[in-house]
């Protein structure tokens, strides 16, 4: 599976220790930590748009930061183009930063208010020293500003962030991320702070930039409805674990994990005639400091049984390119294995749509 993968993650973990008093730590002899990301594995194919979906506290943002090495993993391996980058130092990472970039959520905070737009966008070029002269830097800035439709670029270059609207600021952040023609882009909720009428515009712009460069795109979001329309594949996270991963159509039309099903059922439908029937699961996401034993979703799962409380389900490929971590999907597989072993005719156990 690593043939076409540009980024591959194996057993990735990130625990944030909780600071307590020195005495408490010594006496109890243990450190408590928030298990933000707990043993996840997946890969991102070259040129694909992968949506990483989850509620707040699911660990999706931490995953994005870990892949770019903006945070150090507690354990696990991150490979970029087949090379293990999980242990590289800051200096060793620097040449790779040309190829991996990020767009943050809040364009009101991710741009330095005291820098001109020109300098904000030019910063990666200057740091990486890819342009020889100042004219060349300026030329590249103009070109990318044109590409993100901040025209005329000459006018925008000499403005400060506070003079721009939210949508324009996010375009600046996008220009800064794409100016070095990265091959891998992480976007962490890039449109959630923007007004609805301009969200689609910004997303379409990012998609166009990604496609033009053939880059791979990790789109981190809580909005399943939007990801349905822009992602090739979707990965669903819950409490630091990957619970389901597959092609967008499979995830949306045939979700197998009860959590994915609940998420999809909870998305409000913009159609008054299809009043949702009240099937909303109860409860809220538990604390990642002390996550439930076994399957982490069992406290809210309508189908939980004994095995879910005792045993953490592994992520298994249930049909081609569709991975699920749930004991339930194991049952038809177990029946199938049993039937095959007994020489009974196999009944199709394809998940019903």
């Amino acid at each position: 599976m690593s043939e076409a993968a540009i980024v591959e993650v194996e057993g990735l973990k990130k625990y944030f220790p909780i600071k307590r008093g020195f005495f408490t730590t010594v006496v109890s002899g243990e450190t408590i930590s928030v298990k933000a990301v707990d043993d996840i594995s997946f890969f991102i194919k070259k040129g694909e748009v992968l949506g990483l979906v989850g509620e707040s506290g699911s660990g999706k943002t931490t995953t994005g930061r870990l892949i770019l090495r903006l945070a150090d993993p507690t354990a696990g391996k991150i490979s970029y183009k087949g090379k293990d980058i999980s242990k590289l130092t800051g200096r060793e990472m620097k040449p790779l930063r040309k190829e991996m970039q990020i767009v943050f959520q809040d364009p009101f905070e991710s741009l330095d208010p005291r820098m001109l737009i020109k300098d904000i966008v030019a910063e990666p070029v200057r740091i990486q020293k890819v342009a020889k002269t100042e004219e060349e830097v300026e030329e590249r800035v103009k070109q990318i500003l044109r590409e993100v439709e901040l025209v005329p670029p000459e006018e925008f270059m000499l403005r400060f962030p506070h003079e721009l609207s939210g949508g324009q600021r996010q375009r600046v952040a996008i220009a800064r991320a794409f100016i070095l023609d990265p091959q891998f882009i992480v976007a962490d909720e890039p449109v959630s702070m923007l007004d609805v009428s301009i969200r689609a515009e910004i997303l379409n712009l990012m998609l166009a930039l990604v496609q033009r460069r053939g880059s791979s795109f990790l789109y981190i979001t809580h909005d399943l409805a939007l990801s349905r329309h822009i992602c090739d594949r979707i990965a669903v996270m819950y409490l630091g674990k990957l619970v389901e991963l597959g092609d967008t159509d499979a995830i949306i039309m045939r979700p197998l994990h009860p959590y994915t099903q609940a998420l999809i059922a909870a998305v409000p439908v913009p159609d008054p005639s299809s009043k949702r029937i009240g099937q909303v699961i109860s409860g809220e996401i538990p604390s990642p400091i002390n996550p439930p034993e076994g399957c982490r979703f069992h406290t809210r799962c309508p189908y939980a049984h004994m095995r879910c409380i005792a045993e953490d389900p592994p992520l298994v490929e249930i049909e081609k390119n569709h991975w699920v971590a749930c004991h339930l999907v194991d049952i038809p597989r177990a029946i199938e294995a049993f039937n095959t072993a007994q020489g009974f005719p196999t009944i199709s156990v394809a998940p019903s749509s």
Partner: protein
Amino acid sequence: MPILQLEDLTTNYRTVRGWVRAAENVSLELEKGKALGLVGESGSGKTTVALSILKILPAGGRIRGGKILFDGRDIVPLNDKQMRDIRWKGISIVFQGSMNALNPVFKVGSQIVEAIRLHEDISKSDAYTRAEALLEMVGVEPSRVNNYPHEFSGGMRQRALIAMALAANPKVLVADEPGTALDVIVQAQVLQLMRSLKEKLGLSMLMISHDLSIVAEVCERIAIMYAGKVVEYGDIDAVFKEPLHPYTQGLLGAFPGITEHRKKLTSIPGQPPDLLNPPKGCRFNPRCPYAMDVCREKDPQLQRAGSGDHYVSCFLY
């Protein structure tokens, strides 16, 4: 007779650079026991309308014209003391940002009790019993009255705020962006609660949101606001089935359903105008794909269009 009726409500904010025309000539009707959704982007004036109804505008905000009829009585000329009888008992509000609307240093129960005892002359212990009943009604364990807000999860805080708004049995509940900061599943739980409260208590609700789909789930009627004006208004099925105003059409295109087939997302080019100096004529004309000469000259009025209970302010119709 509608329980709440706005007639040409105009609310502006005074700034050093002039009046910001946050809401102009807004006319709406809320029928008893029904829910009206007020939808718009940030800066469209939807929160201004809500704050005007309770007359709790921030400094500089002033109702410069129009009437707000609550139960047939205009509340615009009322003074602060008279308004106090209307707030909570008549009209109550659930504020935006459930995370910050509770006071962190008081127990949730005592905050609800405070609201009850301000409006009713009952003993502290009776008020606590009421607070417990209120919490139970919104789906929070009654014993949690003695918890502090930080011990509540986001969804529970939102529920507690709803309980508090219902403390004095209001006739009208104004909900400003309910559940917006919450996760989808919790948001769905809150919407379900609002729906059931509406039915159980016969509440009339004015629901303010930027999210069309949330309003579609709860409300019978909808008003779309853009740059301080109501551009489309009517029965929710009519508006969704046959959106008439180009802005409504654009908004609906920007809200893809999850069940719909994969499609390219559409958006409305440009951005909302500066309300210190709104564009001449129809305020949407700089972004409108169908703008005609008349749109740049004259201000369209809300008029009946399409079929049934459906009004639009656009020269195309």
